[in-house]
């Protein structure tokens, strides 16, 4: 049993699959859908996990290890951050400014910072000292 990523349009989705021998060939059989790659990088949601466990015996350590090894695009990292840290004003409490305490992957913050700087330069034209115009 392993994780397979399929690209549908601009987005990538992850599936749990296994290999089935058919004569001399081994065919991949899709067992279930895990979710969009950008969503499952921070962990498979509890409800999906429970549904899968009702049908299969899964070695989650192995699956999580495989998910962690999926190389992410900048867009996926960006989407993952949005999903993970969107702060709901209704849930905001004193002392909590942001949510989520999952550790970042190595080099992720540096990549995000670099991307932020590039996006800022693209989005805002510097027109004077401490003055910008939004494109």
């Amino acid at each position, binding site marked *: 049993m392993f994780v397979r990523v399929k690209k549908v349009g601009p987005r990538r989705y992850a599936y749990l699959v296994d290999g089935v021998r058919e004569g001399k060939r081994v065919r991949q059989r899709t067992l279930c859908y895990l979710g969009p790659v950008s969503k499952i990088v921070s962990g498979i949601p509890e409800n999906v996990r429970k549904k899968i466990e009702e049908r299969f015996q899964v070695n989650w350590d192995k699956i999580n290890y495989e998910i962690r090894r999926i190389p992410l695009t900048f867009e996926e990292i960006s989407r993952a951050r949005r999903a993970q840290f969107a702060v709901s*004003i209704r849930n905001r409490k004193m002392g909590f400014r942001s949510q989520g305490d999952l550790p970042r992957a190595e080099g992720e913050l540096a990549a995000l910072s670099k991307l*932020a700087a590039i996006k800022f330069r693209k989005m805002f034209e510097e027109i004077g000292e401490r003055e910008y115009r939004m494109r």
Partner: protein
Amino acid sequence: MTTARPSNKITSRPLTARTLVSELKKEPSELKKKMLLLGYITDRLERKSQSVYLVGGQAVETYTAGQFTTGDIDITTTDQEATEEILARLGFKREGTVWINEAISVAVHIVDMVPKRVEKVRTIHVRNYAVRVVGVEELIIDRLAAAKFWKSQRDAEQAKALLSGFSKSIDVKYLRRRAKEEKVDDVLPK
């Protein structure tokens, strides 16, 4: 003889509250939507010689071009009553200390009545409006304070991202002085 037709571009005329809301509903970029809204509020307040500044998470979101997102728009204003009046005219409803507009999915939080420090403020022009955003230096100090005293890892990351993105335009002397004043000089990255 031909006569010049007056330009009927919306951008050349000040928007009414209703036109603005209808434009904001159509705006695909979340960041631009928020900037236009703030620009409008700033314009209305500056006509009364008052001011409004973007602070907090939304300021980080702006300086990182949406890379580090937030939920609401935190602002400080010199005239809370007038600001609330403008928000109400735009269809915002008060929910505790937050003003929410469900039609455009935006929440505004007036966090402070008086802006604390405005000397390093940056101005962002969007269409005919200007948005005043708290200085990057002040934002870094604010994030570092949250990181140090609230043990917030995310705020520490935002401080690092801002430092890295604006390394060339930051007033380092000012930053160091403010860090000392706020007792966060020990966590200020070298």
